[in-house]
């Protein structure tokens, strides 16, 4: 399956794009997706420890099992207010 990954805030500048498509075997976890993504975009890997990850509009951890059609979002710590 192909998973669409949206980048937000300055992650777009780090990666040089706002959206990335990553082919993954069925049954992959969110953690495996991130490993694959960081191989392709090492600039994002440097931010790994402060990265927030959501599937659709909910936060998810690395054990989350990816589904067909899932859209993943990666972003830096939020700063509203």
């Amino acid at each position, binding site marked *: 399956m192909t998973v669409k990954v*949206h980048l*937000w*805030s*300055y992650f777009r500048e780090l990666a040089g794009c706002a959206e990335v498509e990553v082919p993954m075997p069925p049954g992959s976890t969110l953690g495996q997706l991130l490993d694959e993504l960081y191989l392709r975009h090492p600039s994002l890997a440097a931010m790994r420890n402060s990265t*927030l990850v*959501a599937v*659709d*509009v*909910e*936060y998810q951890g690395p054990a989350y099992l990816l589904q067909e059609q899932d859209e993943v*979002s990666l*972003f*830096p710590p*939020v*700063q*509203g*207010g």
Partner: protein
Amino acid sequence: MRRELTLTETPIDEATWVAGRPWDASNGAVVTFSGVVRDHEPDGGIRALEYTAFERMARHQFGLLFDEAERRWPIVSLRLVHRLGIVAAGETSLWIEIVAPHRGEALAACGWIVEEMKRVVPIWKRALRTGQSGPAH
């Protein structure tokens, strides 16, 4: 609990929001919080902040916070307005109003909402510094 969430690029006119308060005379306490863009930060002068959001998720996460606030306190009305786009120094970027039976509940809920918002709601800001025409982190 009555709830109202507004994400807007238009300046927040607090007096207008206050005048439009949904009133219910059975309730004794109203707390408001306004976050105003400061004209300086420890590392220099600021002329504006530019706010961006993953808006669909922001609305969902605000909704979860409002649900949780409602579980924790007997809130009657919660209105929250957040600016997006460029907000000049001195302008209000966030306005919250909480109506509850008593002040302790309203104050606690107000502090909690701002704190949690800064943890989970996907909104980001970047500083537009004085003497600079472009954005900077």
